[in-house]
């Protein structure tokens, strides 16, 4: 899959070591809290190699100190200490939040090839490993910079909800020594989980999935309601602006009229001055007229400025990012449900086949 962000990185290669570390951390974190941490590694030949990972400390206060120290110590034992991304645990699609986007954006800004590995401890049962690598598409990165969340801006940039994250193919890699160890381990009993997959399971995972989807749909409906009322608000503000603009226009027209009359008078006075001798009254009249002309020009300027401001005033559009994320989530969950259905149907037919043999 062509990566639009960083043309260099086409796939992510995770070391077995990093994989086990991530799994250990995520499985040990208490209850539903999300576990997250940093990925270390290096980028080479279009592949991003992740060689190590360590969790974020509980205490965020002295986290920077912690990272610095950790990197120093790791460097002494020749471990790669380049951060290449971060990982987090999540249940199926729950990681699609604006927080994740914010963190990933900061990472990608600083380190263009960084990725986020999402590990799902709940799906990693019965022989399936729930680990995927994602990155923000460059399309979306440019859009995020503007921080304009109105639906107009979304439409202008043609951001589809599926465009936000892009998945990067992932491979797992191990050194030869580790393969030697794996061979040793396979000889031991109880380490294979091949046949766990054939378990039919029940309807529980489907119910959970559908429940989450219906929650997301409720969110979307709420968002639609909000959007409707915000559109009304936008219309109101726009009408207001129109009114004000009209008033300003009127004032400008009247002032221009007044200016015209004053200019006429000024001209007449100047003509008179030429014909007759200079008279004190005439001079002060001339001065007064010039002054009032300047005043009016000043007012005209001010009116012009306020007209510009009114036109520039931002309309209170509803920020749409959350709605997009929710629809993305829904897309994710539906893909997951489809895979589960596919698996289940396959197993059902296989049982049917076996049964008819007996």
């Amino acid at each position: 899959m062509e990566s639009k962000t960083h043309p260099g990185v086409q796939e992510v290669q995770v070391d077995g070591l990093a994989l086990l570390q991530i799994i250990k951390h995520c499985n040990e974190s208490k209850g539903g809290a999300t576990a997250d941490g940093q990925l270390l590694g290096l980028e080479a030949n279009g592949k991003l190699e992740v060689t190590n990972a360590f969790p974020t400390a509980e205490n965020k206060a002295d986290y920077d100190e912690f990272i610095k120290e950790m990197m120093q110590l790791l460097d002494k034992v020749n471990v790669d200490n380049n951060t290449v991304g971060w990982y987090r645990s999540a249940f199926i699609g729950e990681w699609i939040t604006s927080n994740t986007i914010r963190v990933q954006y900061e990472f990608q800004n600083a380190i263009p090839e960084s990725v986020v590995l999402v590990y799902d401890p709940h799906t990693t049962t019965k022989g399936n490993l729930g680990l995927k690598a994602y990155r923000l598409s460059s399309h979306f990165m440019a859009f995020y910079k503007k921080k304009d969340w109105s639906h107009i801006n979304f439409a202008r940039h043609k951001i589809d909800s599926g465009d936000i994250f892009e998945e990067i193919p992932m491979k797992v890699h191990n050194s030869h020594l580790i393969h030697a160890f794996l061979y040793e381990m396979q000889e031991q009993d109880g380490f294979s989980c091949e046949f766990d997959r054939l378990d039919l399971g029940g309807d529980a995972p489907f119910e959970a999935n559908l429940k989450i989807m219906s929650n997301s749909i409720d969110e979307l409906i709420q968002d639609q309601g909000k959007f409707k009322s915000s559109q009304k608000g936008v219309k109101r503000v726009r009408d207001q602006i129109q009114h004000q603009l009209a008033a300003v226009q009127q004032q400008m027209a009247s002032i221009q009229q007044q200016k015209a009359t004053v200019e006429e008078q000024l001209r007449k006075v100047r003509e008179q001055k030429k014909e007759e001798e200079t008279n004190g009254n005439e001079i002060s009249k001339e001065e007064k007229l010039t002054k009032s002309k300047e005043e009016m020009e000043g007012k005209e300027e001010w009116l012009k400025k306020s007209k510009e401001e009114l036109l520039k005033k931002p309309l209170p559009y509803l920020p749409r990012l959350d709605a997009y994320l929710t629809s993305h989530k829904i897309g994710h969950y539906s893909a997951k449900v489809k895979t589960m259905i596919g698996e289940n149907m396959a197993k059902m037919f296989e049982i049917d086949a076996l049964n008819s043999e007996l």
Partner: protein
Amino acid sequence: EMAASPPLPSKPFFLAPPSKDGEQIVLKVHPLVVFSILDHYKRRDPKQEHVIGILMGEVNITPQGKEYQIKNCFQQESMEHKGGGLIFDVNYYQKMATLQKKLNPKESVIGWYATDTQLDIISYEVYSIIRKNFVEPVHLVVDASLRDSRLSVDGYAVKKMGFGGKARLCQFGRVKTELTASEAAKIALGAVTTGGTDSERKSPFTPATMLSEMENLTYSLRELLHLLDTVSEYVDQVVAGKERSTPEIGSAIKDALAAIPRIDMEMFTRMFNQKTENMLMILYLTNIIRTQVTLTNRIYEVLD
């Protein structure tokens, strides 16, 4: 204290004398630890022959004795000891130990590891350094030189022997070491060994792709088929008189066959249809939802 009498060097294959009940030490090693040790070994300075590091984990008291769960480890910057052998920088050790404690408050230092199969006085020095933090550290030796075509993982504990109430010398005795892993870890390891279709992977050493669930399912089914073939072949051979069978194998086969549930055809068809209908309904619902959501999004684009 022990400083007076240096320990006798002991050969790795010396088996510790059976200890009294309630004092047996068992080491349970998680695969992450071995992976980390091997990774450390791979990254070492070319001048160094071996590496050394610290083990972390928990100690559980079981009816048989003590069980050391070795869950984690970290590498140590090692230095050559003047007497030959490896020792490490105590400053580094303390710094790293504090950092790790912050990350995993439940785990503590419970021992150390080395890739060097020689256990001698240096090991004893390491032992005394660690003893300051933890009373009974254990030692793990991972033989990365692959002697005898085996990557052995052995654990040792220090046995003190003496008389007159005072311990006079200590020896490293081998203790029972087992590999254990959490379910998720096993799955990860499974994915690592079996990933990738046959056409793509030229050798087991190329990086493995993460297989989709359907491919995994196919693999499992093929394995099952393979097993069934092996067993039926065996039974044919026995019937033809070419192979002998034992009562254990026979009863195992009998148990396996008996485990298949007998379902009446009509009930099975009903169950099957019901399940299939459920699946199809969910599929239909999902498709509708997705279409609806996409449509809604498109409308926003056209507005205004």
